[in-house]
């Protein structure tokens, strides 16, 4: 189910005729994302640069409510890094590229304990 969703939502960047990737920079300061709503075009690669200015680790995890619920409940097994689940160590920057093949509204948040409750939540709209 999850793999199918991933395949559906995140498609690897293909050949040289692909349109130039869009870029979005999201800062993190005092455990809040600098942008609470991001609108990106569907069907083209978008590069996200997430800069963590805090002295603690954070995450930028984008997905639908079912994906977030799995992480909240702890049923998501430990896994390798994924393009849509990025850990940003303290005082560092990470970059990831995603393509949303169809228009969709997703949420991004940090699932480290207490961070979502503190307000580390945002909305991503691909249209």
């Amino acid at each position, binding site marked *: 189910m999850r793999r199918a969703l991933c395949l559906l939502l995140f498609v690897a960047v293909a050949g040289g005729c692909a349109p130039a990737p869009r870029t979005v920079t999201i800062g993190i300061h005092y455990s809040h994302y600098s942008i609470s709503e991001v609108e990106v075009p569907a069907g083209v690669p978008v590069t996200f640069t997430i800069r963590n200015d805090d*002295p603690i680790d954070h995450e930028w995890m984008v997905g639908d409510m079912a994906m977030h619920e799995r992480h909240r409940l702890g049923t998501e097994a430990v896994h390798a890094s994924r393009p849509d689940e990025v850990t940003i160590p303290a005082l560092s920057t990470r970059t990831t590229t995603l393509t949303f093949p169809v228009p969709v509204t997703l949420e991004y948040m940090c699932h480290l304990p207490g961070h979502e409750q503190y307000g580390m939540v945002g909305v991503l709209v691909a249209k």
Partner: protein
Amino acid sequence: MRRLPVFLLALVLALLSLGAPAFACGGLIGPNGAVNLLRTTTFVGYHDGVEHYVTAFQFAGGGGKFGSLTPLPGVPSNVERGGAWTLQRLVRETQPQKAVAAPVPLATRNALSDVQVLLETKIDALDITVLKGGGAAVGEWATAHGFRLPADAPEVLDFYAERSPIFLAAAFDADAAAARGQRIGDGTPVHITIPTANPWVPLRILALGKQANDPVQADVYLLTDRRPALLPLARGANGLTLAYDRTASKSLLDDLRSDAGMTWVPGTGWLSQLRIDTTAATLSYDLAVDAQGRSPSRVAAGLDRPGAADPTALELTLLAAVAGAFILVAFREQNRISVPA
């Protein structure tokens, strides 16, 4: 990717099952964030320009390591094991009708290099380090030394670092405490000596890692040469109550003076007991004290940002005079207009 079922439940379980120690007026940081959920007790004495800050860890059993970060108003000249009965004696003085309870104890890149370690010492199972640095630097140092800081830590550390860049980090090794034979309920008092112009007690740090509606409960005993002026005012509605406010008894002062490291206690003094009973969202201030009974610093209380200089008595008087003159002129002008031609 680490996931926990329910954060609040995890905090409670961490406290119960891991046997977290508690530390007064510091943000206690366990594996899941701050777990300082119990009423804490702190004593702050001020005499001859020196603040004596006495607080305690309480060993509550179990294992694991916990840490605490406490902001300080200045560089301590000494950190030592506190006396054996100071906190208990204060509780007995202000609550004589109750049984004595055991004291319940607390971005720049490469910021790590911006931290100065001013002092390191070990007291029982506590590893204590006094740091000087900005909020990000201290936070990075704490993370690098095994502290898991909660989500609000970056803002709270900056809040304090803007006022005083001195922090006391205490790492408590519960396994070492057990190995030392410490029993559940045993406390490790810590006495911090800080030369400073006025005493100051960090309170906001008690809410570190808590959810907005989580309770914060603490008792602060303050001993000064004379009746102090406090800010914020203990109005009750703001979660701060002045539960005891009178001349310290000779027997109390004699008892305190007889405890280890307490010979500085003067022959006369004023004892205040401040009770904090509020929620984390409400506790946005610290306790600023003017030991001379005049005007405590709004900046120290966390009510103004640093740089917003506290008005002097002369400035307040001039402001009142100008306001009074303005009102008088306005009143006369109104009378003049109302007089028919």
